[in-house]
């Protein structure tokens, strides 16, 4: 009885919501027939109640921060304060046309200006552009600036971007989009970048390196200064993937580590909602030498200290625009509200408690008999547990653990990332979870381990208590069914 049909299956021809269109619209006699649509699109025809009920019921099938502990590593699933949503949704913000006169936009511009300033302070960079619409677009902007920098110097032999083998997939993919080839740098047994390999890899072909620190392995790259020196000496620049900034907010500034450019995932560190897949926001910060290339628009001030947009006239060497307007403004507002509530002490405490939670959880899981991928290391805001022993004997995988956790009322940690750790769970509790939540998670892990030892089938069959049992990804990719069709047939 848990099924909710597709909205199209609720549809009945001729059902119309008169509350949304009481009167028939105007005619189209000035548009020739050949330009007119002949057959109506097959949107659902349902009542407003049908739609409300359907999407309310569907929503209940999601796990979310608001309903579950969600320790998804690398994603920083912390509490999204409701005030951020409420305040960013004030009519004065929502109703503003993007091409409004600057004079009529001083309210929003002031917020964006403040946010730029705060992000500069947090990252230790000299300028920030808010326009990238997610982390990956921030990466694009960053690497494109690196390229613009080398190009501006006529240094066009630099064709390669270095990326650690543990890096997030967006890093190599971004390098490619910027026309670079990618060289992977191995990780050593301690989880640090293999400096010997790095030294061997750098050269006049090196455009730069993309790093995140703490790395995707959940540990702090201790030799960051050395790495910076090696890369800089080879003439390359350093890109900082800010997805893990939550771990070091107010503790270390990427600018101080020697990075030339950085993006920040506001939808992680600054707790804007992830919305089931976005919108995010990935502002970029730059050092002095990349400043001329920063993407537009930015918020500046004019002589009488009114805010205004900076564009190609102000920054003629800019890599250009990344969106039709100024990126995900509403998300920036949410981050701004969050930053205001935290303030300077609040930000430092994020790093403190995100780190405490991760180390505590790691300590407890270790005490409970689980294997850590990097047992010698401190956890940062996250850590990796490997189930490679369990995969051999009794024969349950990280995926089995993940699915069984769902039955216990926990969202699963990130599985199988980073790719270099076998059977891994990347666990990021975040600072907004209480000790009790962490303790309950440990209990669940212990209980699942016990189940695994008793009968592997229990885990293999999981989940049991969700709207569906385990889903077949292979069939999804093999027998593509990407849309509903009235006759049930395949799309042509």
């Amino acid at each position: 009885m848990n099924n909710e049909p597709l909205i199209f299956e609720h549809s009945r021809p001729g059902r119309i919501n008169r509350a949304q269109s009481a009167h028939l619209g105007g005619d189209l006699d000035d548009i020739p027939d050949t330009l007119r649509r002949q057959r109506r699109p097959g949107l659902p025809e349902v009542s407003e109640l049908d739609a409300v009920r359907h999407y309310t019921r569907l929503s209940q099938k999601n796990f979310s921060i608001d309903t579950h502990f969600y320790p998804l590593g690398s994603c920083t699933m912390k509490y999204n304060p409701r005030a951020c949503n409420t305040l960013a949704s004030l009519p004065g913000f929502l109703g503003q046309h993007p091409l409004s006169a600057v004079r009529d936009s001083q309210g929003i511009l002031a917020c964006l200006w403040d946010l730029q300033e705060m992000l500069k302070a947090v990252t230790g960079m000299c300028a920030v552009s808010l326009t990238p619409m997610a982390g990956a677009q921030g990466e694009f902007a960053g690497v494109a600036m690196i390229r613009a920098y080398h190009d501006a110097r006529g240094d066009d032999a630099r064709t390669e971007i270095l990326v650690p083998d543990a890096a997030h997939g967006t890093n190599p993919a971004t390098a490619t989009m910027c026309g670079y080839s990618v060289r992977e740098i191995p990780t050593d047994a301690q989880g640090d970048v293999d400096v010997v390999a790095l030294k061997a890899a750098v050269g006049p072909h090196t455009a730069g390196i993309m790093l995140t620190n703490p790395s995707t392995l959940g540990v702090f790259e201790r030799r960051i200064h050395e790495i910076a020196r090696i890369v800089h000496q080879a003439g390359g620049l350093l890109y900082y993937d800010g997805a893990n900034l939550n771990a070091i907010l107010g503790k270390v500034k990427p600018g101080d580590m020697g990075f030339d450019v950085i993006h920040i995932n506001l939808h992680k560190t600054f707790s804007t909602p992830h919305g089931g897949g976005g919108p995010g926001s990935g502002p970029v910060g730059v050092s002095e030498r990349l400043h001329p290339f920063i993407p537009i628009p930015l918020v500046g001030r004019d002589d009488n200290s009114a805010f205004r947009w900076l564009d190609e006239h102000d920054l003629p060497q800019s890599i250009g625009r990344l969106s039709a307007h100024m990126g995900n403004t509403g998300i920036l507002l949410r981050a701004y509200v969050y930053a205001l509530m935290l303030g300077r002490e609040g930000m430092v405490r994020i790093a403190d408690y995100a780190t405490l939670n991760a180390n505590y959880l790691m300590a407890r899981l270790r005490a409970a008999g689980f294997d850590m991928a990097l047992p010698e290391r401190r956890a940062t805001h996250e850590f990796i547990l490997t189930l490679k022993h369990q995969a051999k004997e009794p024969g349950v995988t990280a995926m089995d653990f993940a699915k069984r956790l769902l039955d216990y009322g926990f969202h699963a940690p990130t599985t199988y990332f980073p790719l270099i750790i076998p059977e891994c769970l990347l666990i990021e509790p975040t600072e907004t979870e209480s000790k009790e939540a962490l303790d309950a998670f440990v209990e669940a892990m212990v209980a699942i381990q016990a189940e695994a030892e008793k009968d592997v089938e229990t885990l293999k069959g999981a989940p049991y208590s969700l709207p569906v049992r385990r889903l077949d990804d292979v069939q999804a990719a093999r027998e593509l069914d990407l849309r509903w069709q009235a006759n049930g047939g395949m799309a042509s």
Partner: protein
Amino acid sequence: MPFIPHTEGDTRAMLATCGVDSLEDLFDEIPPELRANALDGIPAGCDELAVSQLLHARAAQNAQPLCFSGAGAYEHHIPAAVWEITSRGEYYSAYTPYQAEASQGTLQLLYEFQTMVAELTAMAVANASLYDGATALAEAVLMAVRANRKSKSRRILMPRTVHPRYRDVVETIVRHQGIELTRLDYDTAGGHIDPTSLPTEPGDVTALVIPQPNFFGALEDADTLTDWAHAHGALVIGVVNPTAMAVINPPGEWGGAGADIVCGEGQPLGIPLASGGPYFGFMCCKQKIVRQMPGRIIGATVDLEGKRGYVLTLQAREQHIRRSKATSNICTNQGLMTTAATIYMAVMGSAGLENVARQCHANTRALIKQLSAIDGVETVFDRPTFHETVLRLPRPVNGVLEELAGHGILGGVDLARDYPELGHALLVCATETRSEADLDAYAVALREVLA
């Protein structure tokens, strides 16, 4: 400590479990010389009350005149149900649906979204969103280069009737791929691409971009353009307004074979103007090139018991699997916006959306009629338009708009910078949210300003 639940006792107990004495100890792997001392430049924290008062004050500083601007962002009515449901925590605070079994709400909704977008455009398949209309066009260009295996030129015909900012963004994003963006000029009478002006022997063209309606609001002769492109081995990339799709021939039906890739800005589908974002880009394509599509794609499948369910699929295209060989670097997209758009489309239905389109069109026509009756004001193009049009004023638009602002009117978009050749050209638009009284108010004000 805002949003941190730890009591002092918790902290002490947890530190003990970690085997350290203080929070500081947990950071002992960070080289000491790197440690930041303070976050100067960040103000002290405020409570929600204080922040709320500040944000209310800031919101009040945003004046909101009567809006006659479009140019890619449209003030449409959004049924209240849309955001009352979209902002439910289960949608708002979930991550990308990696754990499918725990995300069937979002996944089923996105599958419905894909279906709706494909229906609107009459295309085979759609993805689950890109950042915005402009980046969607950039991705479409990159996709066309991958998909058109026969073409070696990497040459894209990019008409000037495409939104100028979209062209800027395409430029930024595809610059490093050896792609040549060839400008196509428009017909000065019609404000559209004149098919007869296209070369009969264009050489190797990878794709032709067709905006419908175009930036001027003019309707392109999409059928002829599509057939021309296909005849020369080029793919067709449609850039369309989703509201227009309710009444205008959709790209899936352009010419003999339909467009190959279609993209556009989703904002008109229930997304507030919000100073330009977050909006979302949508993208559709023919079935046979779906594996070249960027972005998340949701597919239906079955569970262990054969029950229907939904998952992220074709992940082998994506960065987290394919890494440097991925179709795009996009990861986080605009999920919550597509949630709103899906609910918007469900609440409106085909009839409702058609009605919106018709009402917009009628209002814009009525506005043009009123404004062009004013001395010195004239329409610039003679092609059929949808929903937006270019007017020529007797003096620089800039100054006129400023004076109109004094009357509480956002009078449209000045084209002087992007299309100086058009003279004092103003792009105007009146959606279904403009009443007769609003139109009158504009006419009265403009008459006064120009008098």
